[in-house]
């Protein structure tokens, strides 16, 4: 008689053995001591085994795919360098968008790597723990490939060389930095909600689609390539984000109010950080793809609307102040670019005023606001420039205690009035750019009252001195090279020389 045939395992069972099957209930040490961080936030997980793995990637497959991808990436980069790809971009002004990305976003990839390692060690459920470990690897690779790609631009353009140093010090870089520091100093479930869900699921298309199509439109093949290489990883990150949210909501009804509060908070924080991307899309791309307002409509109003419709069955509602953020989509880029124009002397990239054609494009894209509130200001600044009286703002701005952006935003419904809010905590008054930022502070005043705000630090004498030149030195920015207007910059001279040489050859 032949022995009974063994039952073959399906993929799901096999994957379970390769991951959660490795885990055990510790007995020489208490599980709560082995996993000390996953309960204090109040999120109740009654049964981790209910977690459904959204993807099944074993390590050998991971190394194989990533290795192949990276080989292709480096081949493209080599040919970009050999063919002087930097000369084939639309215009050298474009490079300033890349400067903002490398100094502002790439360090966040690295922070994401560090903190997903925290989750990869400390989340009790093996499914999300393994997913977090792989994401930690992904984010480290993203930081590395971005630095590698962008290092080529550093050979020809200013403003790149000191990116990690600048990330820790420069006023506008403290906006993305403090956003991530906030997430990394929160508990693991809040971090998942902040980064995996709010940032990578809800808002990611507003960062990566504009950025990558902007790069493609403007002839920046190097950036397009690292974008594509990250895309398959991002698909995994997004699924992790949505699955964690659903899992928390399915596990216990007490989780809903906690998750809702985090969704509200991180939506608002993300909206403010993305104001930098809005500015990039509306002002910094020599060849435009779509306006920030259009991107917001497609990727938040429509896609986000459908998402929250779907999540309503768990009781989750659209983030608080989504309506205000939507109204601001026709304001935020103009207000931000105006801030950078006024403070160009302290920025690590170049600024400029939009030309006639660009002004008309902005009028067309923001018909409700641009001609009425913003065009006159840019035209006035243009006249001042013509008279040799270019406007610089030499006063240090007040910063929002929560988002750290200079308080230049206006009241909802009244674009002629700057929006101020404040709260008193332990006898000190703190200032905010908006009700959203005030609410966040009021919920965690002990945390946000400790925020590192550059302007305060300058006044306290912690930034190299009191003069602009002292602070620039402390930033590692070279006066007249890394900062100020594009017109007259070494970047421009270099670019014009390339164009002249081309004409000669074509001549």
């Amino acid at each position, binding site marked *: 008689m032949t022995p009974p045939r063994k039952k073959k395992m399906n993929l799901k069972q096999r994957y379970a053995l390769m991951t959660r*099957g490795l*885990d055990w209930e510790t007995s020489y040490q208490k599980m709560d001591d082995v996993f000390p961080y996953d309960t204090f936030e109040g999120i109740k997980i009654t049964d981790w085994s209910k977690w459904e793995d959204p993807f099944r990637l074993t390590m050998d497959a991971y190394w194989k795919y990533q290795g192949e991808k990276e080989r292709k990436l480096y081949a493209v980069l080599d040919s970009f360098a050999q063919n002087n790809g930097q000369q084939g971009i639309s215009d050298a002004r474009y490079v300033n968008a890349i400067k903002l990305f490398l100094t502002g976003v790439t360090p966040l990839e690295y922070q994401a790597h560090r903190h997903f390692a925290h989750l*990869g060690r400390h989340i009790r459920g093996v499914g999300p723990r393994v997913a977090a470990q792989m994401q930690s690897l992904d984010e*480290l690779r993203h930081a590395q490939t971005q630095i590698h790609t962008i290092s080529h631009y550093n050979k020809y353009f200013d403003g790149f060389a000191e990116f990690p140093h600048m990330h820790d010090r420069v006023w506008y870089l403290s906006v993305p930095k403090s956003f991530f520091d906030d997430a990394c100093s929160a508990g693991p479930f809040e971090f998942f909600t902040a980064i995996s869900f709010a940032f990578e699921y809800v808002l990611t298309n507003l960062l990566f689609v504009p950025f990558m199509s902007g790069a493609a439109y403007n002839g920046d093949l190097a950036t397009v390539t690292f974008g594509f290489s990250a895309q398959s990883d991002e698909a995994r990150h997004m699924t992790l984000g949505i699955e964690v949210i659903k899992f928390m909501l399915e596990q216990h009804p007490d989780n809903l109010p906690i998750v809702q509060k985090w969704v509200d908070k991180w939506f608002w924080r993300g909206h403010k950080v993305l104001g930098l991307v809005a500015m990039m899309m509306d002002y910094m791309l020599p060849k435009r793809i779509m306006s920030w307002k259009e991107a917001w409509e497609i990727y938040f109003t429509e896609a986000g609307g459908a998402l929250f419709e779907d999540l309503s069955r768990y009781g989750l509602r659209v983030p608080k102040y989504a309506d205000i953020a939507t109204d601001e989509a026709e304001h935020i880029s103009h207000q931000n670019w105006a801030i950078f124009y006024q403070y160009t002397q302290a920025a690590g990239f170049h600024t400029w005023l939009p030309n006639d054609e660009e002004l008309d494009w902005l009028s067309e894209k923001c018909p409700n606001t641009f001609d009425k509130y913003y065009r006159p200001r840019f035209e006035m600044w243009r006249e001042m420039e013509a008279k040799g009286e270019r406007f610089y703002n030499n006063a240090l701005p007040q910063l929002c205690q929560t988002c750290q952006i200079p308080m230049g935003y206006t009241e909802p419904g009244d674009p002629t009035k700057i929006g101020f809010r404040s709260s008193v905590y332990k006898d000190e008054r703190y200032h905010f750019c908006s009700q959203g930022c005030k609410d966040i502070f009021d919920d965690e005043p002990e945390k946000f009252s400790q925020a590192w705000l550059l302007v305060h630090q300058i006044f306290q004498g912690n930034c190299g001195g009191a003069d602009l030149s002292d602070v620039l030195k402390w930033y590692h920015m070279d006066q007249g090279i890394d900062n100020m207007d594009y017109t007259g910059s070494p970047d421009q001279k270099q670019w014009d020389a390339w164009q002249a040489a081309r004409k000669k050859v074509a001549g």
Partner: protein
Amino acid sequence: MLANIDEEWREMIVKYLIPLRHYEWGANMNACAVSDAGYGAALTSAMIFTTGDRLGIAQILSRIGIVLSEGDAELLGRAKQAWMEADAWQGVRKAIEDSLVEKDWFEVLLAQFLVMDGMVYPLVYKHFDTAGQKHGAAALSILCEFMVDWSAEHNRWVDAVVKTAVKESDENRVLLSDWYGKWRSIMSEALQPQAAMVLGDGGEAVLNEVCEQLDARASKLGLTL
């Protein structure tokens, strides 16, 4: 491929090798802990790659278990039971669990990657593997080749890290030597039943040899024994 292994040794593999997938999972957690809490990209970046490598090794061991089990989970279940309950494994499991609650990330690094791995890898992938050759286990050596190559490479990194830290100051040397002594004695005891189970009477001598070689490596790194 594994069909040539005799019945008796197959049983032995389930006892000594397959439970190590849980040891690897512990090492994965420890690498991830160092990547999380450590200071300096030279250490933390390397440790997240190690995190992935140790999960990969745990998965290689799991696949070996599934193949030996002709496609089902039965042997993995028995190996897990051994990890949880068999006397021979309790010392190692306790050492791993103790390392998981250790708060000093450098002690975790030293305990896991210098001491525990420094004994487990040569004992299992060299000495136990050699013993298996008499039982037709040549194919198993091929399946474990990755672990041998991987640890040779990883040890160079571990040695460089420990050496640098020892050189930094006398206080470092004293502290690291202390930790080394503590984990060395825990592990040399924990592995005795393993060595006896697989190598019988010869086990003790082999384990002593493994410990001596690790001591020699540690002295070279500047640790005081």
